[in-house]
C-alpha cells in the first residue's frame, strides 16, 4: 500500500485520520477504536471487517 494514501484515507465510522501499524499491517483509528486490515496490499475500509482494539491497545496507541 502506498503510504501517500493515508493523506486522504480516514476511518469510515469516525472520519478521523488513521495510523498504519506496519507490524500488524492494520490501519488504526483511535477515535473509533477500530483496526482495519490490509489484505493483499488493499486496505479493507469496512466496519464489518474491522477489529475492535483491546483496551491495552487503545492505551498504547494513545501514548
Amino acid at each position, binding site marked *: 500500500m502506498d503510504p501517500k494514501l493515508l493523506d486522504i484515507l480516514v476511518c469510515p*465510522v469516525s472520519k478521523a485520520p488513521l495510523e498504519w501499524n506496519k507490524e500488524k499491517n492494520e490501519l488504526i483509528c483511535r477515535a473509533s477504536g477500530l483496526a482495519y486490515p490490509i489484505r493483499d496490499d488493499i486496505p479493507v475500509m469496512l466496519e464489518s471487517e474491522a477489529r475492535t482494539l483491546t483496551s491495552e491497545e487503545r492505551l498504547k496507541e494513545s501514548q
Partner: protein
Amino acid sequence: MSEQNEKKTTHFGYQDVPVEEKVKRVADVFHSVAGKYDLMNDLMSGGIHRLWKRITIDQSGVRRGHKVLDIAGGTGDLTRKFARMVGSEGKVVLADINDSMLKVGRDKLLNSGVAGNVEYVQANAECLPFEDNTFDVITIAFGLRNVTDQNAAIASMLRVLKPGGKLMILEFSKTDNPALTKLYDFYSFNILPQMGKVIAGDADSYRYLAESIRKHPDQETLKGMMEQAGFVNCRYQNMTGGIVALHTGIKP
C-alpha cells in the same frame, strides 16, 4: 406505530430481504461473476457498454492533476482511462465493496501497464473512508443499483467531493419507448439468464441483474435524490433509448 418493531427489509431484485442480507447477497453475485465480468458485459450488451463508458469519460472533464474516485469500479474500465488523463501529478482511487472484483481489476490494470497513480481501496459507498472535499470527479458506473441505502451513498459522495466537483452516475434506467421496452424485457428475463447460465455458470446472478434494473429509481427520481442530497446543476442524458442514463450533478 407497530411497524417500528418489524424488521427493515429492502429489495434484492424482486425479492424482499432483510437490509443486512442484501449486502451479502450482492457480494455473492459479484464473487460469482468477477472472473467472467468483462466477457459477460461485452456479450450481454453487444459491446455497447464500452460506448456508454466512453461517453461518461468524454463528459467527465477530468484533467491532469485531478483526483478521481471510481466507486464500484469493478474491473477498472473507467480507472484505466482516467489514470492516463490525470497523469503522474493526479490520482485515481478505484474503490469497490467486493474484494473479488477489486483484485480482478487490479490484476487487469497492472497487466495493461497502469501503475503509479492508481490506488485500490475496499469501501462501502454508503460510508466512504475519505477526507471531506478530496475529489474533483466521482464516477459510479453500474454500481448504485447494488447499494442498499442509495441516499446515504449519494450524501457520502457529496461529502468527499471538492466544492465544484462533479458526480457522475452511469446506471441502467427506464426505457421510454414501449416497443423497445417489450424487446428489452424479453431479452432481460429470457435470454440474459440463459447466457449467464451457459457462459458464467450462474443464471441466478443474471436474473438478479435484470430484476435489480427494474427496481432501480427512474431518471427523474434519481435526479430528485441528487438534488435532495444537495447537488446542483443535476441533469441526465439517456443512452440507447433509456436502457442506460448518465446523471451528473455538481457539489456547490
